[in-house]
Structure formats: C-alpha cells, structure tokens
C-alpha cells in the first residue's frame, strides 16, 4: 500500500480511518470521522453517506463506556461542531441548544441566569445529543425521572429527511430516539425545560453506611427526604464491612444556606479546577491500590452525618476534576457494569458483589442508587429499584465468564443492564431485559429504513437487523 498523496487537494480522497474507542478504551475499532459544521452540513453528509451505502453513526464526547459510539469500518459524525446555546428564555426556563454542546458549557450559560439542568449524569462532559440518545439519569431519578422527561422538542436528521419531534406530536419517533443510542438518526438540537435555582451551590449531607444493609436502608429513606441521593460503595471490603459506603444527600442551596460572603453573588459560576492525566500511561490502577483507595475514601468520610455547602461541580461531577482519568487504567482500559434490579429483588445487589469477589475481580469504583418510575422510551434503562455501577479493570482473566453469570442473575431478577455502559452483554439476553425492543425496532425502521445508522453496540447485540449485503443464511432472525 502506498501512502496517501500529500497536498492532493483536487481529488477528495477518502480520509484514513482512525481508532475510535469508548470511554473505557477496552475495544476500539477503526472508522473515518468527520466534523459536523452545521445542520445543513449534516444533511449533506447523511445524504452522501446514504447514497454510498456505507454505515454511519453520530458521536459526541465519547463518554459511553463500551462500544455505543463506535462504528467499525463506517463513518462517524463528530457532532462537537454543533456546540451553540441557541436561545435561552430566562423567564420561562427553556433553552434551545445544539446537540454537540456539552452539559458543562450549557451549565455555564444557564446557571448565572438562575437555572439548572433538571437531570444530570455524573459527568458534565457529555453532549446534549448523547444525554438524549442514552436517556441519562441523575442522582434525582427517584423524583424526577430521566433526561428526556425535560426535552420538549428535538431536531432529528435521518436519511428520509429532517424532522422536529416532540413527545406530544410524534411520540413513537420521539421515544425511539430517546434512549435510541443514536440508531434513529442524528440529533442536531433540542429544546429543554430547566429547573430554577437561587444559588449555584449545593447543601450536601455526607454520612457513612456501615454495611450494605444500612446503606440501602438510608438510601430508601432518602427517597422521600432528599432531592438527590447516591452512595459510593466500597466494592472490595469483606466481612463486617461488606458494602460499607459513603452516602451523599443533596439539595440545591437557598440563599439562607450560604455563608454571608457568598450571598452577594449567589449564582456565581463555579471555578472548577481540572488536572489533566497525560496520555500513554501504563496501567496505574491495580488491585492493592483499589483496596487502599476504597479504604481511605471510606475513612475520610465523617463518622457522623455532616452538612456542608459545596459548589455544584464537586457534588455532581467529582471525577471531572481529573480530565481523562480513564487513562489511569492504561492501554487495556476498563469497563463499567451498570444494572438495575426491582425492589423486590434487592438481594441481587448483594449477590452480584459476592460473585465478583468470589471470582477474584476488584471493583475499583462502585456507585449505588435508587431509581423511581420508568419513562416511556422503549430502550430507556431506568426502572424502579436499585441500580449499581461497577468499574472493573478490563483485560483480566475470567471477567467474561463472571459477568455472563451476573447478567443471567440480573435478567432472571427482572433487571437489565445499561447500553450506554455496555461493551459485552450477550445478545440473547437483550429481549428479556428490554421487552419493548420490537416496538423500538419498528419505529426505527420508519426513521432509518435502510439501516444507515449502526453502532458496534447495535451489531454486537443485534439491536438492528444484519446488513442486507450479508446473506442471512443460517441466521434465525
């Protein structure tokens, strides 16, 4: 193979594929990426790609842990070019924003005006489009539901044209796009309803949970008493300390909660410090370090419940303070296993930890929280019950078999795993975990009849039918 001619402007040669990976960096694949510069440019790119017969996928900030934003051998639309906050109605609390805008950038625009995101995940480094496509949830799911509950309207670009979708006027395509993992088209903008705040601070109550039972009991009680609740759980402690945790319960602070010197400018933007992690590091996270970190984190938490006033980033986005922290896991990366099980099967939470410990896995970071009612989107992850997110070193022995057994446990308990985190679920379990898959597939077929939008996740889990150019012989779908 000869190198591509340099400086050959006249003939638009196909650009070279580059490695595209999920946040966990455990299974990268190669694709050609192209920056989307405007909604019209997006239409043009989609039309051109549809005509050429290849596959394509939108990508935002690449925070999906597994392969949801990868499109091996295809074309990736880098939506970070669509990053404008288009229109903020500061009296009604409604914002129209481009889909490639990050939550961080949007917050910087709306917080000084007295508004906040009604739902935010644990990082602000996701795009609006990504938040809708994964129908993300936050620490307030038990009260407010998912991100999409606050989306009034979105603009979707598909091979059959540009459509404005809303839950009232076009429920099927709207709710297929919400939690649709980018497989119905490319979102270029959305209109969101915001939540009012009077200060940019949070009142945070921090307390320890001595073991798993106490942790779950405290979280259950917090459903009624607190707006936001989450527990960090020590996933490696054994014996009496099994499931010990640090629980943080939060509320937006009122002016009366602030110390006097902050009251003059209660909506002051947060000055977030951010340390970068350099690329090319070897794996710095090891089992002994995981044990030491978890023990230290627990001991550092106050013995008795304490209240403090914090800026919103350290409460909602503690890990954003370390940019590219996924590099700490080295070349082999890590994966996050997030599942939900209904309340009546809360015992599964314990069983999963026990399975992982018995299999010699060392969860580096574990987050436990409660979910409230499920939303209407067929592929939306949250449903009432308990959700646990577990970070695990990738590339360790027996991980595949161990997590396969955990999947079965979760599925048989009526639970499911989260596509935005997944990189390894078995396709056979998808229908049991997402019983409305068929409804979603029907809606998708109308928006993208020729199956232009495909991700590695979709192919791995057979969310979409195999491409027609591949003879179906022998497949039973």
């Amino acid at each position, binding site marked *: 193979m000869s190198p591509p001619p340099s400086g050959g402007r006249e003939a638009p040669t196909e650009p070279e*594929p*580059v*490695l595209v990976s*999920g946040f*966990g960096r*455990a*299974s*990268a*694949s*190669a*694709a050609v990426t192209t920056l989307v510069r405007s909604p019209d440019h997006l239409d043009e790119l989609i039309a051109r790609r549809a005509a050429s017969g290849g596959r394509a996928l939108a990508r935002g900030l690449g925070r999906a842990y*597994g*392969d949801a934003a990868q499109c*091996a*051998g*295809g074309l990736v639309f880098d939506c970070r070019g669509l990053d404008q906050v288009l229109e903020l109605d500061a009296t009604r609390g409604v914002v129209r924003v481009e889909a490639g805008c990050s939550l961080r950038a949007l917050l910087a625009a709306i917080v000084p005006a007295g508004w906040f995101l009604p739902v935010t995940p644990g990082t602000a480094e996701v795009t609006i489009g990504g938040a809708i496509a994964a129908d993300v949830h936050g620490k307030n799911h038990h009260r407010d539901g998912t991100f999409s509950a606050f989306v009034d309207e979105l603009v979707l670009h598909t091979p059959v044209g540009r459509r404005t979708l809303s839950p009232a006027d076009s429920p099927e395509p709207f709710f297929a796009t919400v939690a649709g993992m980018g497989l119905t088209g490319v979102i270029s903008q959305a209109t969101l309803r915001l939540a009012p705040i009077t200060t940019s601070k949070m009142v945070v109550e921090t307390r320890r949970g001595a073991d798993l039972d106490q942790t779950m009991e405290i979280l259950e009680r917090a459903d009624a008493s607190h707006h936001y609740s989450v527990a960090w759980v020590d996933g490696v402690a054994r014996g009496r300390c099994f499931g010990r945790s640090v629980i943080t319960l939060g509320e937006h602070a009122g002016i009366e909660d602030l110390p006097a010197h902050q009251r003059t400018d209660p909506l002051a933007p947060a000055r977030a410090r951010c340390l970068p992690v350099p690329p090319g590091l070897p794996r710095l996270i090891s089992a002994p370090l995981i044990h030491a970190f978890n023990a230290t984190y627990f001991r550092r938490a106050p013995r008795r419940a304490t209240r403090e006033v914090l800026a919103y980033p350290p409460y909602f986005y503690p890990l954003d303070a370390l940019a590219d922290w996924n590099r700490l896991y080295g070349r*082999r*990366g890590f*994966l996050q296993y997030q599942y939900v099980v209904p309340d009546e099967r809360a015992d599964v939470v314990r069983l999963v930890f026990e399975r992982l410990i018995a299999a010699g896995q060392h969860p580096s970071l574990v987050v436990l929280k409660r979910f409230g009612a499920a939303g209407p989107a067929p592929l939306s992850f949250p449903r009432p019950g308990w959700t646990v997110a577990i970070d695990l070193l*990738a*590339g*360790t*022995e*027996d*991980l*595949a*078999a161990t*997590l*396969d057994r955990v999947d079965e446990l979760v599925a048989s308990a009526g639970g499911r795993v989260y596509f935005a985190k997944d*990189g*390894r679920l*078995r*396709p056979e379990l998808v229908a049991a975990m997402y019983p409305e898959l068929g409804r979603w597939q029907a809606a998708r077929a109308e928006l993208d009849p020729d199956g232009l939008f495909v991700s*590695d996740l979709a*192919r*791995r889990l057979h969310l979409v039918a*195999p*491409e027609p*150019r*591949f*003879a179906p*012989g*022998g*497949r*039973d779908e």
Partner: protein
Amino acid sequence: MNDTTGMPASAVVLGGDSELAAAVLAKLAKRRLERVVLAGRNEEALARRGAELSALGVKDVRTVHFDATDHERHDGLASELASELGDIDLVLVATGALGRTGSDELTGAEVARSIDTNFTGPAAALVGFARVLRRQGHGTLAVFSSVAAVRVRRANFVYGSAKAGLDGFCQGLQDELAHARAGVRLMIIRPGFVHTKMTAGMAPQPFATEADVVADAVVRGLETSAELVVVPAALGPLSVLMRLVPRALWRRLPS
C-alpha cells in the same frame, strides 16, 4: 464484534479440523460465538467438528474447502467469507503438520510441502484476512506457532524452521498492525508438546500438555489482549534459556 472482554461472535478457522482449534472454539461457544466457518481439507472431519459446535449452541456453522498450499485461492477466500459471514471477529490459524524428520529419508517434495503447510500457506492466507479485518475496522488474528519455533531443533527441523518462519512473519505483521492503529490485532500462540492426533505415538516431551489447557490459555490471551501466549506458561522463561544454550550443547540434546 469482539466485545470488551475480548470474546468474538464470529470466527473463521483455517485448519478447521485441528484438535487445538476445536478445543478453543468449544470454550468460545460458551461465551458468544454464534457464527463459525471451519476451513480445511478433510471434509468429513470438518463436518464432524461442525456438528460438535452446533451441539454446543453455535447457531451458524459452515465448512469450506481450504488447502493451505493452494495460494491462488487465499485472497479470494478471505473476502468471500467476509461477504458471506458478515464481520469476522476472529481468524484462528491452526494449519500445520509435523511430517517426517531425518534428512536421509526426506524427499525434496516432502520438505517443500511441509514448509508450505506450516509457513507459506498460512502466511499467504494471513495477509488476505488481515486486509479484510482492516477494512472492517476491527478483529483479531490468532495464529498457532509452536515452541519449536523458538529455536530449531534437530529432532524436527523442517517443522521447526517452518514454524519459525511463520512466527517471524507474524511478529512483523503484528508490528505493522499495531503501527497502523486499524483496530486489528494479532496474537501468536506457542504451545509446547500437546497430546493430540498430530503427536499420537510420539514420546511425550517435557512439559507436555493437553488441548484443553492450550484452549484455556488462548481464551485467556483473547481476554487479556495478549500478543504472545506460551503454554504451558513454564515454557515462557524456558524459551529465553533455549535461545542462550550454546550450539554445541543444543546439538547434543536428546531428540
């Protein structure tokens, strides 16, 4: 797609009737293997292996005629299989035969054939599959080399030198693939003496092992993104020693 734990959904096996390959596939079938193409010369043996895999729950098992020495067909085969099977997550290269030893008895044709089966043939096939995997943007090539490739021994120098050739070829291809950052990787597997049909009747060597142990090591290699799997593991450090033994001594080692 290979998943984040390195497990493939589809595989093409060159040397599809190999016992080592069958043991690997049986393990992968427990995870997510759903499409397999067994390529080889002995159609009856392929059909039998195929039936075993179907019984293990692999949904789509096919067999195809493949002769490692038929180089003309290699390029076409890779792209044919890709269009028939869809994405190829794993290409397992398990062609090879020990053949006779002793220069006194060997014919030139026999030597050429052995080197073709063990080196030239699989190497020629590998470039075709590497190209297909690069085009699809992901995939793993796993190639059975041998501990015999570490240092050629008088006891099996035809086989050993051919495997040494293949091993070196794979190391070069590994570097090229890593440099290209195309999402494709290659894993070299160097088993020691394994009790199989190929070694039946031979006096077992030190550190002899079973196909099942080799298969476990291969699956672990896929899980851990290993570039080199030496099995049994003790042969890893021993390989270093093997390279250091003076020729005069190496020559005298019992065969």
